[in-house]
């Protein structure tokens, strides 16, 4: 019973946090970026606070997703994923630390 209560509590908290910003489409809280041909697609994304973004590496070469001081994925082999939830507004420039010419940007408002 104790476990169930805690889970319910968690769901309630998550709902309370998410509700104010879920005025747009429901899937806006979960967005995906694919790594294809050494590029982040889409390379630029505007999201709302509380959105979770998942990067998937679809190349045969490993990549990383790194935003200096903000987040850093482990090395993503083919089909590996990295997920980050943006809880603060701001511009998040990020890149692949193995192939630094690969860059992307998340605008959080």
């Amino acid at each position: 019973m104790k476990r169930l209560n805690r889970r319910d509590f968690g769901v309630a908290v998550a709902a309370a946090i998410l509700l104010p910003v879920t005025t747009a489409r429901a899937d806006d809280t979960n967005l995906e970026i694919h790594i294809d041909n050494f590029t982040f697609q889409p390379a630029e994304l505007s999201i709302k606070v509380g959105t979770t973004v998942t990067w998937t590496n679809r190349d045969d070469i490993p990549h990383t997703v790194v935003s200096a001081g903000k987040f850093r994925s482990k090395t993503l082999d083919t089909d590996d994923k990295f997920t980050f939830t943006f809880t603060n507004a701001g511009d998040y420039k990020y890149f692949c630390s193995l192939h630094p010419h690969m860059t992307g940007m998340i605008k959080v408002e």
Partner: protein
Amino acid sequence: MSGHDHGDDGVNRRKVLECMTWAGTGVLWTITGGVPRSLGIIDSAKAATAATPGMTFLQISDSHVGFDKPANPNALGTLEEAVNKINAMPVKPSFMIHTGDITHLSKASEFDNADRIISQSKLDVHYVPGEHDFLDEEVKFYRERYGRGTKGAGWYSFDAGGVHFVGLVNVVDLKGGGLGNLGAEQLAWLEDDLRGKSKSTPVVLFAHIPLWTVYPQWGWGTEDGGRALEYVKGFGSVTVLNGHIHQVMQKVEGNVTFHTARSTAFPQPAPGAAASPGPMKVEDAKLRSMLGVASINFKQNEQRLAIIDTPLQG
């Protein structure tokens, strides 16, 4: 006629691996009159080796042990084929350099496997790391195996056959939007390392990513590579060797010659020839026309390199 049977059923797996081996053997170098000179890849170099006295050394690169995707499902196997060719050489090279990406994912098992195969050459091997060798969390596997006696992230120098060799690391502290990077500490060390050396001493710089700008759109260059090249400008003979781009390219700039090496694992496209620099997947039957042999003949004071490209199938 090539002497090979290429029926409609395509090239079988064994022949594909044969091609991969051709693509990925090593480059043999000799020191003639104190100047490094390429004798081409091992097979074409065999005859030349027998006739050429003096020190020879070998370069292999981009073994990517652990890579198992369709472009080459057995990167360890093609590395072993390359080492077998090295062992079959009539004259044993003095040593070997490996210009990085020994492994694909920096796993301990990948380093173990690479070491087991490369050590069969029974040659001293001087390594520099590629970005694929620094993927473990603490970046310790490469350093524990190959970093003994090196500075910083793994740079060092040594002398052999009257030539000053410098192994550089340009795969750490990469900045978003940038290229390969040597960094201030390494550049200061390099300047110091070269200070006091006679300008007539031939210098060989080797690193993983090209020190010259090959194709910045794919990150094929080193942000501060020009600084390193400044330090060697006054020397009479400078040879710069690297891997990373999995294909042969040369350039001459004054007394500096640049050479890139093939991979022992998989080919990569020519700059801009594909959507990305990723592994080039080709049909088995097409592979022979896309892989080949390049022999390079370089003599000091000649402005042009003689490059002979020989595809395996016309």
